[in-house]
């Protein structure tokens, strides 16, 4: 446990003192440690179920407790996988000669620390601080290098993120005023019935988190920020960072939503998600720049996640579990596929020296490997079997039919068709034979291998969905011996 929290923070301070190349070597060592620790924690949860961990030995409500359960540990492991891939890719991809690139590693590690803090957090205020840690590190990564367009995107991102955090904190303030505690579990215990003030609090928190997750129509900040950042950074932002605020919203909804929610609220959040799927895919289809296509595709894929709200509200327990599993699979498969897609897009951009889709003509001869990774990731986004995206949509399909909300089925199908449209548009552009230029740059093999591995993981996720999902339903012990939790 301590290792999981300590490593990213320690490596952040260590890599700040080194330059980019030395920081790279040190960071790779840190990634190995972090992956091992995450695996060990996953194994521990598999063995004996979830437990809570009191930081500093002070139990909640006085201190801050962490909640280590199946869902949290799955996300910790996912973060370790995606962040390691992005870190390895960044080590080769970024220009080591630029003096500001040395700040990539500390920001990267702080981002990782914040993500782990969110997955494990059980304290509402601590979640706020973790969210801010993530936001500021992400903004710093977007702004790194500091040309005007990146600064503009970073500022938009910063303003959106700050407003979202404050709305969340205002909700926390109301909850603390009412219950006198910040622990989500204790609030859940004390909450007996619906009160109007608490609905206001929940609405504020959900609105703030939706802004940070870039739910339609609050998504305006996402495409510029994800499109302009360096490709490994875009992969981190799209794959992991937007999921952090969604994760908190989902946790709040699953704990408190049954008493504070209403069918009206659940359906309207679902409708916004559905609108995001359609509108985001349509805009992705129309973008002139390669990375903007991928960024708008994120807006669409995030839309699916918000179907969690209608599909878990006032439905039977097994249906709700089905929907939760579907959404979890969607988060995992999107994180893997989108990271693969951004990294592959980065390779393509490196090769053709242009960001435009129509400049891709002829690249299929020169970079078939990266293009293939891009396509494999696209298969998962479209939701074709046997990918993780297919398994996720299949579960969601079952959940919406079982709960009698058949209208979401149309969204799931339409979203898949639109995803196919924008992925094939890239393919069409890259197979065009123009023949006037064969001036392509060949990125190193290792750069091409990393997105391929991620894409294959996303593709294979559908085959191993059962064991992955079994971790989610592990029991959670309320009292755990702290000393045993030393990893």
């Amino acid at each position, binding site marked *: *446990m301590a290792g999981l929290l*300590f490593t990213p*923070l*320690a490596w*952040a*301070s260590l890599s*700040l*003192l080194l330059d980019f190349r030395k920081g790279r070597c040190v960071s790779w060592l840190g990634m190995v440690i972090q992956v091992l620790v995450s695996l060990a924690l996953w194994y521990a949860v598999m063995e004996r179920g979830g437990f809570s961990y009191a*930081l*500093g*030995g*002070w139990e909640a*409500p*006085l201190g*801050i407790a962490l909640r280590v359960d199946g869902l949290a540990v799955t996300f910790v492991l996912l973060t370790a996988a995606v962040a390691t891939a992005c870190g390895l890719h960044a080590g080769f991809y970024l*220009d080591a000669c*630029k003096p*500001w690139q040395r*700040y990539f590693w*500390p*920001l990267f590690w*702080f981002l990782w*620390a*914040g993500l782990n*803090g969110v997955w494990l957090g059980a304290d509402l*205020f*601590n979640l706020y*601080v973790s969210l801010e*840690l993530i936001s*500021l*590190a992400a903004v*710093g990564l977007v*702004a*790194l*290098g*500091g*040309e005007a367009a990146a600064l503009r995107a970073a500022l938009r991102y910063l303003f959106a993120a700050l407003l979202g955090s404050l709305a969340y904190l*205002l909700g926390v303030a*109301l909850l603390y*005023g*009412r*219950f*006198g*505690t910040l622990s989500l579990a204790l609030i859940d215990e*004390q909450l007996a019935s619906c009160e*109007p*003030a608490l609905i*206001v609090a929940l609405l504020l928190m959900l609105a703030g988190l939706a802004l940070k997750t870039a739910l339609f129509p609050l998504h305006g900040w996402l495409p510029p920020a994800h499109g*302009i950042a*360096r*490709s490994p950074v875009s992969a981190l932002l799209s794959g992991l960072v937007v999921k952090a605020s969604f994760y908190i919203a989902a946790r709040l909804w699953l704990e408190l939503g049954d008493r504070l929610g209403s069918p009206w609220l659940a359906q309207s959040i679902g409708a916004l998600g559905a609108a995001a799927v359609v509108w985001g895919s349509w805009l992705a289809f129309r973008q002139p720049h390669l990375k903007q296509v991928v960024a708008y595709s994120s807006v669409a894929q995030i839309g699916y996640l918000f179907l969690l709200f209608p599909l878990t509200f006032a439905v039977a327990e097994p249906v709700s579990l089905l929907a939760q599993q579907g959404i979890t699979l969607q988060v995992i498969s999107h994180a893997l596929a989108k990271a693969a897609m951004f990294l592959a897009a*980065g390779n393509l951009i*490196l090769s*053709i*020296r*242009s*960001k435009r889709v129509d400049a891709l003509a002829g690249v299929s001869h020169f970079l078939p490997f990266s293009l293939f990774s891009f396509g494999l990731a696209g298969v998962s986004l479209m939701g074709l079997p046997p990918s993780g995206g297919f398994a996720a949509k299949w579960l969601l399909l079952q959940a919406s039919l079982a709960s009698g909300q058949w209208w979401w089925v149309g969204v799931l199908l339409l979203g898949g068709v639109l995803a196919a449209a924008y992925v094939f548009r890239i393919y069409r552009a890259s197979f065009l034979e123009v023949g006037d230029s064969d001036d392509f740059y060949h990125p190193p093999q290792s750069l091409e291998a990393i997105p391929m591995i991620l894409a294959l993981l996303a593709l294979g996720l559908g085959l191993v969905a059962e064991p992955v999902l079994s971790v989610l339903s592990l029991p959670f012990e309320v009292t755990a011996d*702290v*000393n045993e939790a*030393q990893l």
Partner: protein
Amino acid sequence: MRRVRLFVTLLACAGLIVALAAAVLDVAGAAVSSELPEQLRASLERSGVEHPVTAVLLNFRSYDTLLEIGVLVIAGMAGISLASTNSLEDPALRSADSLLYALQRWFVPVMLLLAAYLLWAGAYRPGGAFQAGAVLAATGVLMRLGGLPMAFIRPGILLRLGLVIGFAVFLLVAVVGALMGEAFLAYPATMAGLLILTIEVALTLSIGMILLALFVAAPVTDEHEPEEGAGS
């Protein structure tokens, strides 16, 4: 169109105020008395400091504070990543005001003393690392405006070490507890006071340094990285 937008926004914000005020009054009427304050009073003896706010900040909820310092370090680091070497010594930014020079001689030592007092007072009355660090940073700003040379603020290993030292000391103390078989961030009860003081001193230095670096980093240079894929 513009007036419609103005009107709608103002109406929405007024609606928000009304809804929030109703919620606040509702909560104020229904608030339960929690056992948290009593629990806090009971545990205060074991925390190593007398002032409850400092105890909450640096012992009970020290994870929050650790991450908060992390946020500060991120901001400082992102700030200096946008600055470059030569701009930090820009003579044009120095003030030529003779009154400032005269006052500076009196103010700088007094402010340093005040920072030290605030740090020391944090254990039993309002004060603490952040307040002391802010005063320290203000001293630095005054010195910079007066043109006193401050070699350590140039972006180099010294500056980066200064940014991170408080965070690193905090983290080391946190992990020592874990290595000795207690929870992460747990202090041994007998040494809690001493450890908290060590953390506070390092934090004060770092906080002052970060805030000063952010002030100094605001001037800019023309050097920047070309956009991704803008090669041809």
